[in-house]
C-alpha cells in the first residue's frame, strides 16, 4: 500500500518518504508499547495516540516502518529526527484511533490478530 494513499484516506500529513510503499498491508493499534513489542508477526503500521520518543523507539525495535499518530497528536522535532534516522515514516491525522482503524480495515488493511 502506498503511503500517499493511506494519508489521503486519513486526511493526514506525511512526515518522511512520501513515495514509500509498505511491504505488507497490516497494522496494529495500541497506546501501550509493550503490547506492540510482544508481536511476533511482522507489522507494517502502528496506529497510536501515544506521541513521544518511546513511540519512535518502539517502532525502531519492532521493525515497524509506518507510525500513524491519531487524535491530532503532533510529533516534535526530536521524534521527527529519530524517525528519519531510522527510515520511519510518520502520518499525523486528527481522526481517532477507532476511526483510523475502521477506515483502514475497510480498505483491506489486515489485523495482526
Amino acid at each position, binding site marked *: 500500500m502506498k503511503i500517499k494513499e493511506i494519508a489521503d484516506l486519513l486526511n493526514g500529513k506525511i512526515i518522511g518518504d512520501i513515495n514509500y510503499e509498505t511491504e505488507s498491508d497490516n497494522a496494529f493499534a495500541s497506546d*501501550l508499547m*509493550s503490547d506492540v513489542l510482544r508481536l511476533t508477526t511482522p507489522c507494517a503500521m502502528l496506529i497510536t495516540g501515544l506521541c*513521544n520518543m*518511546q513511540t519512535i*523507539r518502539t517502532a*525502531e*525495535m*519492532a*521493525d515497524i516502518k509506518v507510525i500513524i499518530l491519531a487524535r491530532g497528536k503532533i510529533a516534535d522535532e526530536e521524534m521527527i529526527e529519530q524517525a528519519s534516522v531510522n527510515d520511519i515514516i510518520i502520518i499525523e491525522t486528527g481522526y481517532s484511533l477507532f476511526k483510523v482503524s475502521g477506515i483502514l480495515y475497510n480498505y483491506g488493511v489486515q489485523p495482526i490478530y
Partner: protein
Amino acid sequence: MHYTFDIEEGNFTNAGQASGNIKKTLKQLNVNPASIKRIVVALYEAEINAVAHAYGGKIDVDIDSDKITMVVADRGPGIPNIDLAMTEGYSTASKEVREMGFGAGMGLPNIKSNTDQLDIQTQLGVGTTITMTVFF
C-alpha cells in the same frame, strides 16, 4: 566486543538509546534480522524497566561470534516477588509511566520469550540485575 551504557533515572526521552545502538552494531555484524529483533526488544524492555521502576543503572553488553549477553543492573528498589512480576498483565506502573506508553505488564514476559537464557537477581533496597543471553 564489550559495550557499556548508563541508564539515567527517570529519563524517558533517552531510554532506548542503548538498544538502538546495539541494533546498529548487530546489523553491521550481519546478525540475522530475526535474532536482532529478539535481542533489541528484550534489551529495550529491560532498559525501560530500569527507568520506569528503578533509579536508573548500567548496561553491559558482550557480543561474541554466536551469542550476545546483556546485563542490565539497576539501583533499586528491587522486585519483591519475581514470580508475580513475571506474570502477564501484572504491573505497578505509576500514572506517569502509563502516560509514557508503558504499564501493560508485558515487559518481563516479553524479555522471557525473546531470550534463550534469563537470570534475574534482585535485592530489596539495593537493586535488580537482569542477565539475558540470546544465541544468533
